[in-house]
């Protein structure tokens, strides 16, 4: 019961994160939204695995926590690479 409430809250927050990812306005907001979305997905999967009574799904949550971190690093690296071309546009990205 309580697990369901938590899952619902998580889904609502995930929807909020998607809204933020769509709205922007800067690229960093989008990255933040993706990061938030990822963490919430980790929790959602953990909670769902308990709702379904299959704790072995926790492996999937674990891999999510990992992937999430890596994608943030990948994004930052992307900026470092194309710094001369990209950075000046970053702040006022539409």
């Amino acid at each position, binding site marked *: 019961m309580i697990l369901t409430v938590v899952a619902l809250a998580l889904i609502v927050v995930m929807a909020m*994160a*998607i809204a933020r*990812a*769509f709205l*922007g306005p800067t*690229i960093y907001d*989008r*990255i933040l*939204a*993706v990061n938030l*979305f*990822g963490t919430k*997905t980790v929790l*959602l*999967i953990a909670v*769902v*695995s308990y709702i*379904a009574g*299959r704790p*072995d*799904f926790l*492996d*999937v949550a*674990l*891999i*999510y926590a*990992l*992937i*999430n*971190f*890596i*994608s943030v*690093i*990948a*994004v*930052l*690296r*992307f900026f*470092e*690479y*194309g710094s001369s*071309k*990209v950075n000046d*546009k970053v702040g006022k*990205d*539409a």
Partner: protein
Amino acid sequence: MVRARDLFATVMLSGIYGLLSASFFILMDAADVAFTEAAVGAGIFPLLMLTVLTSVGRYEAERRRVRYLPLFVMVVLAGALFAAVLQMPPFGAVDAPSHGHVAQRYIQDSPAEIGIPNMVTSVLASYRGFDTLGEVVVIFTAAVGVVVILLGGRPKTPQQSTQALMAEHKVLRVVGKMLIPLILLFGLYVQFHGEYGPGGGFQAGVIFAVGIILYAMLFGLSNAQRVVPLGVLRWLVALGVLIYGSVGLANLVVGGEYLNYSMLASDPVTGQHIGIILIELGVGITVASAMVLIFFAFTRATRSRDELEE
């Protein structure tokens, strides 16, 4: 997603899309699939996309007009598909035809015949082993294709030092150092735990590749290539397929059928076990090295592109 002109935003959204579809797979009871989609759809795909974007530029050309012909075709197609879909069995129906034939047999007999609880793994590696062999070969071919397209036919660019790449991010480096062993360990766990829980060669391969890619991102490509040189990777890609194929041949030698592992040991169930472990190992090696190879090739290609511009 359709309208955003900034390709970078599109890639970010497609990362969310990968996460979303993986959560959906979890809700649909497909833990193994969610595993793979998590690592691929949310991890490797955006990563490769980003690498490509560094080369092709972040912004798309201006295009404001809507294309009406494709739109029309799509509306018609959607209508036709909706009509067709209503003939499908309802969602979640127990008596749907697709659950009829072999699926029942897999569910009822595979725990006894193969002796492992994860039906997905037993179907993947044993019942449909030939199919999986084909898929591993496809991955191998794709890796070879990427190498030929991006690294072949061109003098090798001198490797520049990429030490300064992430030098500003000391925190990231330290945390990365802590995480990479964990990731690799987790990859091994997934590789060898695939018979009992969600996991297996495909997932483990991707996780392993992600660990090495993380290293390459934090410490520079040349350092990563010192750890796993391209030549070794090329060998490994082929080695995985070779292991897979030769397990099949070994079955023939001991008098069984191709990729039917029952004869590998005196007890058929043990034989199946040995066969599945070996095959998953082959799959894991191929997938991991193919992904790392593809990533290295992409990074090198975009790097040399930048050098040419300068």
